[in-house]
C-alpha cells in the first residue's frame, strides 16, 4: 500500500524534530537563510520587484510584515510574495541540484512573514525553514524527472508545499490542520517553465510563498483541503508526474535531510550553466583577449539546452537563460554576477559577437555539474579545459567566506556594513533571540536617518 504522503509530511512539518538535526543540517539551513536575505535586499529596486511591490501595495491592506530592502510593510502573504520575487529575480539563489529546485525563495519569505507575526525565536524560524525546504525537496525528488520533463517549474510547484509547511509550523498547526494546508496548496501548486525569461519566473516562488502563507492561515482557521492531496487519485503526484515515487517522499523522514544538498550559486544565472562558466573562466589564462577567439565549443549535459537555450537574448532577464551569453561573459570578464546580466550587457555588440561563436554539444555522459570546453583562436591554436565539479556544486561547495563575499557583492551597495550584521545574524540563526530581527537588519535605512556605515 502506498504511503499516506500528505499526512506523513504534515506530521513531520509540525512535530518535534526528533532526533535533533545534525550540526551540518542546522548549518545548511542557516546558510540557506544567509544566502537568501541579502538577495532580497539587493533586488528591491529591480523592475519585477518594484512592480510586484507596487501592485500588492495598491491592494491597500494593513501593514504587518516587512518587505526586505525598502522596509515597506504589507500583509504577511504579500510581504512574502514580494520577498520571494526579489530572492529569485536575479537567478542567484540556492539550488538543489538533483531537482533544480530553489527552495529558499518560496520557503524563507513565508517563514519570515510568519515569524514577524508570531514573534518566534531564531531557532524556531530555522526549524521552520528546515522542514519547509525538506518538504519541498522530498516532493520534488518524488516527482522527478517526469514532472520537470512535462514542463513544470519545480521551484514554483514544490515551493507551495514548502512555504505552507514552514508557515504552518510557525502558526502552531496540528498535524490534521497541516494536512489540510498541504491539500489546499496541492490543488494550486502551479508554475510553467514557459515563464523562463519573463518576470513571471520570479513571480513563481513569490506566489508560492504567498499561497503557502495563505494556506496555513486558512488551515489554522478550519478551512479544508484534500488530506490526500499529494498522493490521492487525481492528486498532485498522479496528475503532474508519469511515475511518482511516493516512498521517496517519506523515506527516513526526520532522520535524513536533503537540505545539506542545497547548493549556492557563484553566478547570477541558471545553475545548469555554471560548469560551462567555470570552464570559460578557466580559459582566461590561455586567452586573455576574447577578441582572439575564432570559435568555442562547449560540451555539457543535455539539460543545459532545456533551460538555457536562448541564442541571442534581447534583455538581461533573457541573458540568464543563454548558455552562449554565459560562456561569453565568463571568458571576457572572468565573472558572471548581476553586472554581466544587465539589459545593456545583453545587447552589447562585443558580447553578441563573442557568443555567436559559441556552439553547444550535448552529451548525456557528462554530469550536470561538469563541462568540457575547447576554444580555437585566430592563430589556429586550440585550448581545452575540463571542469569536473562546478563551483557551488556538492563536489565543491561554496565556503561560508565565499557566501559572505557573494552577499557583499550583491547587497553591500544598498546595505553598507549592515550587510555583515544581517549575514551574521542569519548564519547564527539558532542563537538569534527574535527572528524578526532579520527583517529589521534587511531594511535599507535612508541616509541621514541612521548612519548606514556605523
Amino acid at each position, binding site marked *: 500500500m502506498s504511503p499516506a504522503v500528505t499526512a506523513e509530511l504534515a506530521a513531520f512539518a509540525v512535530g518535534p524534530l526528533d532526533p535533533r538535526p545534525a550540526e551540518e543540517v542546522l548549518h545548511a539551513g542557516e546558510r540557506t537563510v544567509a544566502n537568501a536575505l541579502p538577495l532580497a535586499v539587493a533586488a528591491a529596486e529591480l523592475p519585477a520587484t518594484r512592480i510586484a511591490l507596487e501592485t500588492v501595495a495598491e*491592494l491597500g491592506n494593513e501593514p*504587518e510584515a516587512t518587505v526586505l530592502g525598502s522596509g515597506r510593510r504589507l500583509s504577511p502573504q504579500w510581504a512574502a510574495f514580494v520577498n520571494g520575487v526579489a530572492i529569485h529575480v536575479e537567478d542567484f539563489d540556492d539550488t538543489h541540484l538533483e531537482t533544480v529546485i530553489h527552495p529558499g525563495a518560496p520557503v524563507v519569505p513565508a517563514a519570515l512573514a510568519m515569524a514577524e507575526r508570531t514573534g518566534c525565536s531564531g531557532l524556531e524560524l530555522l526549524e521552520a525553514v528546515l522542514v519547509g525546504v525538506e518538504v519541498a525537496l522530498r516532493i520534488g525528488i518524488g516527482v522527478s524527472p517526469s514532472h520537470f520533463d512535462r514542463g513544470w517549474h519545480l521551484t514554483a510547484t514544490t515551493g507551495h508545499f514548502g512555504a505552507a509547511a514552514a508557515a504552518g509550523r510557525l502558526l502552531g498547526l496540528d498535524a490534521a490542520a497541516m494536512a489540510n494546508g498541504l*491539500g489546499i496548496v496541492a490543488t*494550486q501548486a502551479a508554475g*510553467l517553465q*514557459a515563464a523562463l525569461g519573463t518576470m*513571471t519566473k520570479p513571480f513563481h516562488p513569490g506566489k508560492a510563498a504567498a499561497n503557502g502563507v495563505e494556506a496555513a492561515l486558512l488551515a489554522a482557521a478550519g478551512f*479544508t483541503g*484534500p488530506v490526500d492531496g499529494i498522493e490521492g487519485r487525481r492528486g498532485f503526484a498522479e496528475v503532474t508526474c508519469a511515475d511518482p515515487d511516493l516512498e521517496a517522499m517519506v523515506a527516513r523522514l526526520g532522520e535524513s535531510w536533503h537540505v545539506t544538498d542545497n547548493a549556492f550559486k557563484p553566478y547570477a544565472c541558471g545553475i545548469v550553466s555554471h560548469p560551462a562558466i567555470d570552464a570559460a573562466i578557466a580559459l582566461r589564462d590561455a586567452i586573455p583577449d576574447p577578441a582572439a577567439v575564432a570559435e568555442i565549443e562547449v560540451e555539457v549535459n543535455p539539460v543545459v539546452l532545456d533551460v538555457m537555450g536562448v541564442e541571442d537574448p534581447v534583455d538581461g532577464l533573457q541573458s540568464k537563460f543563454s548558455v552562449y551569453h554565459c560562456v561569453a561573459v565568463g571568458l571576457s570578464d572572468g565573472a558572471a554576477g548581476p553586472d554581466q546580466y544587465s539589459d545593456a550587457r545583453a545587447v552589447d555588440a562585443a558580447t553578441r559577437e563573442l557568443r555567436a561563436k559559441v556552439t553547444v554539444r550535448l552529451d548525456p555522459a557528462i554530469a550536470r555539474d561538469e563541462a568540457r570546453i575547447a576554444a580555437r583562436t585566430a592563430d589556429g591554436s586550440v585550448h581545452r579545459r575540463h571542469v569536473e565539479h562546478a563551483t557551488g556544486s556538492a563536489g565543491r561547495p561554496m565556503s561560508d567566506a565565499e557566501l559572505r563575499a557573494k552577499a557583499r557583492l550583491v547587497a553591500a551597495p544598498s546595505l553598507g556594513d549592515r550587510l555583515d550584521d544581517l549575514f551574521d545574524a542569519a548564519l547564527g540563526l539558532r542563537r538569534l533571540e527574535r527572528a524578526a530581527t532579520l527583517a529589521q537588519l534587511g531594511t535599507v535605512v535612508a541616509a541621514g536617518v541612521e548612519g548606514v556605515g556605523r
Partner: protein
Amino acid sequence: MRALASEQGATAAFCEGLLGLWGRPLPAPVEREASRSLLNVLGVAVGGSRHESVEILLAVAPRPRDGGVTVPGRPERLDPYYAAMATGLAAHLDDFDDTHLETVVHPGAAALSAVLAVGPRAGASGPAALLAFALACEAQLRVAAAITPWNFDAGWQVTGTVGGIGAAAGAALLLGLDAEAMANALGIAASETLGLRVAHGTMIKASHPGKAAANGVLAALLARRGFSGPALEAPRGYFEVLSGEWVPARLGDELGLRWELSLNTYKPYPGGIVSHPAIDAAIALAAQLPDPGAIESILVRCHPLVLELTADPAPADPLRARFSTPHAVAVGLLDGEVGVAQLEAERLVDPAVVRLRDLVELRPERGYERDEAEIEVGLAGGFSRTHHVEHARGGLARPLSDAELARKVETLVEPVLPGRTPGLVGAVADLGGAASLDGILAAVTPPRADRGAA
C-alpha cells in the same frame, strides 16, 4: 511538443480579438444569455455567502485600509484580490452555478468575481460591466474548448484551469489594458493555474473559481504596470503542459460570431451536473411511489461519468453530498425535490435516507448521453417502477425558463437578504442601460444595520 507555426501568436491574436469586441454591443441572444448567467451566479453567490468556508476566508483575509470592494451578500468589504476569492468561493460552494456542458466549466463565478473586484473602481458603466462579464466567460470557454477533453482527462477541474485566464481577460478589459499587456496578464494567470480533481468535496475545491479569479485580477494589475508573462502557446507553456494536445481553432476562430456563452446552462439542483438526469428521474418517480418504505432496490442507469465523479455512497458532509448521486437519488425519491436543504448535514444521517442510499446501484451505460438517465425502483411484492429521462432539466434541450431562473434565485437570495430578489432581478435586467454597477451592488449588499454589526 513544439508549437506549430500556425499556433504561434495565438495568445496575441486572442487578445486582439477580445479587444475588437470591447466597446461594441453584444448580439441580442448573447446579451440575453450573459444576463441570465449573471443573474444566476449572483443568486448563488448571495446564497453561499454565509457558508462556514466563506466565514473562514473572511477571518483570514487582510483588512483593507481604503474601504475595499463588495462581496455579494456580505457586510464586510475586502481588497480586490480577496473579494474576488470570496465571491467566487461563495458562488461555487453549492455547485449550483452555471455550466457549459461540453467542457463542464462553470464560467460565471470567476467572471463575476473579476468584474465586481475591478469594475466599480474602474468606473465601469453597466454595459461595460456586462460586456466584460460576457467576455470573461467567453475567454474561459474558448480556452476550455481548446483543451477539452485532454485537460479534464488528465485530472484537472477545468473551471480552475481556465478561470484565471478568463478573469484576467475581464479585468484587463475593465482596466483598459492594450493587447500586449493583456497577453502578459493572460500569461501570468496561465502560470498559476489550479484545480486538481482530488480536491472535490473540500472547501478548496469550491474556491477554485474564486482563487482563479483572484489570480486573474492580480495578473491584470501586475500587467498594467508592465509585468511580463509567457504566451499560452509557448513551448512548456499552458497548452502543452496542462493539456498536451489542443485545438487552436477552438480558441480563436469566429470570435464574436460564434459564442460558447450561448451554450451556458443553469442548474435546477445543487451538486455535480452529471447527477441531474438521475435526480429528474427520482423526482418523477417520487410522485408515483405510495410508500418509500416499500422500496427494495434502486437501479440507476447512467452515463459512465456519474461513476467517475459522483459515486460517493455515503457522503460525510454537505460539500461531499454535492458529489453523491446515491444521496441525491435517495432524497429525490423521498422528498420529491433536491435543493440545498436536502443536502444539509442532518439529511446525510437520516435513517430513511441512508436506507435508500444503500440500495442505490449505479450502472454505467455506454450508449447514454450525459444528460440521460433511467431509474428502476424495485418494490415489495415484486412490483417495479421505471422512469427514463432523455434530457435533464436545465440542459440545452430543456433550459430553465426566465421565470424558473428567477424562482431559483429567489430560493437562494431570500434566506440571506430577505426581500431583495425583485431588486436584484431588476438590476440585472437594467444593467445594459445603467450608468454603473451601483444598482447590482446595492441589491446584494446587506442593510446598513447589518454592516454596523459586522
